[in-house]
């Protein structure tokens, strides 16, 4: 890497001082630059692309992912952490039950596993419904807060202007009063 930088620096130097190069040197530099460009292109192609492997771990149902999306929507809408905490606790409970269901592999445990899965499904549905309700409430609340903040800003501007007008009026009165209180003395 250092060598490349050095080489490029040398060419840059030569390019800056090309007035000092004769005509036979110029095509040589151009061909070397072309070789460097080709090599750089090959290096870019050869570098292994930034690969992030994704995999599904365990038997996690995509339902958990869907529920997480709903939760993200609630948060984006402005749901508070305490509102979300309740749903997160339910989701973690569902995760625990799902983990228990995964461990039930024996043939005689099929019914229990199905019951646990149904319970998990029910919990996820509950979380999704609550998250949807929360999204509506939070977005309304956020909108109201936003409107109130902007209206508050306008009211503050009006109050500031009135305050300014009163201060100026009082100051002018004070100046008039002071002017009439002035005494003229002969020196």
């Amino acid at each position: 890497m250092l060598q490349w930088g050095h080489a490029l620096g040398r060419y840059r130097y030569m390019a800056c001082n090309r007035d000092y190069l004769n005509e036979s040197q110029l095509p040589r530099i151009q061909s070397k630059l072309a070789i460097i460009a080709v090599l750089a292109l090959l290096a870019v192609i050869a570098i292994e692309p930034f690969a992030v492997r994704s995999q599904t771990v365990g038997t996690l149902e995509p339902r958990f992912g869907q529920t997480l999306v709903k939760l993200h929507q609630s948060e984006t809408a402005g749901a508070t952490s305490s509102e979300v905490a309740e749903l997160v606790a339910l989701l973690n409970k569902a995760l625990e039950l799902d983990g228990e269901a995964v461990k039930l592999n024996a043939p005689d445990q099929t019914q229990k596993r199905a019951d646990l899965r149904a319970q998990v499904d029910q919990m996820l549905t509950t979380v999704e419904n609550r998250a949807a309700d929360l999204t509506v409430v939070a977005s309304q609340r956020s909108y109201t807060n936003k409107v109130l903040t902007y209206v508050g800003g306008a009211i503050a501007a009006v109050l500031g202007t009135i305050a300014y007008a009163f201060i100026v009026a009082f100051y002018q009165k004070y100046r008039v009063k002071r002017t009439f209180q002035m005494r003229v003395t002969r020196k």
Partner: protein
Amino acid sequence: MSFMSSQNRRTLIVIFITLLIVCQMVAYVATTPRPREQFFQLYVLGAKHMAADYYPNNDTDIRLGEPVTWYLGVTDNMGSVQLVSILVKIGNQTIKPPDDQQALESPAPVVTQFMRFIQDNETWETPFAWSISDAVSSGNATHILTLQINNETYQIQDCSASNGHNFRIIFELWTWQTDANAFEFGWTAGGEHRVAWLQVWFNMTSPRLA
């Protein structure tokens, strides 16, 4: 406002407009969430909840059945609820660790995983009490056959080390990617993919004979 001159009125209008612009800018700043750095923290603490005492009697040589207690923790600073999974892997000296540059996980075998939904700014910590419940020696190699983690026994496939030296437990942080609908090693924030992983080395020089 009849008591005012037209010049005063103009001044007032200018002041009102200036104040209005300033106040609306303040309102915009107050209502717009500020962008912040998004990241996770992953840590392993020793038996006394400190970054020390990882081994019983400070001896890196773990004996058969000897209980070791650590604490695994993850902090979510992503600005939203995240589903995380800590993958526990076991390896030896020669196995590749995770690749930070290319965000590739270690090829070491997965022993178990811990999953959890974590809120923004929340730290989730879980005990990691483990012991080597079975290991055999064949020739110069020591094979760990079963590990006991949090009172659950896990069969280990193909994990051996020369003379029982330099085994390691690798912890990888995986996060659920909603767009890919799958777990991915690390997380993406600000168009950049980052990973978090830890490893703790240990020896197992007292296996049973095969």
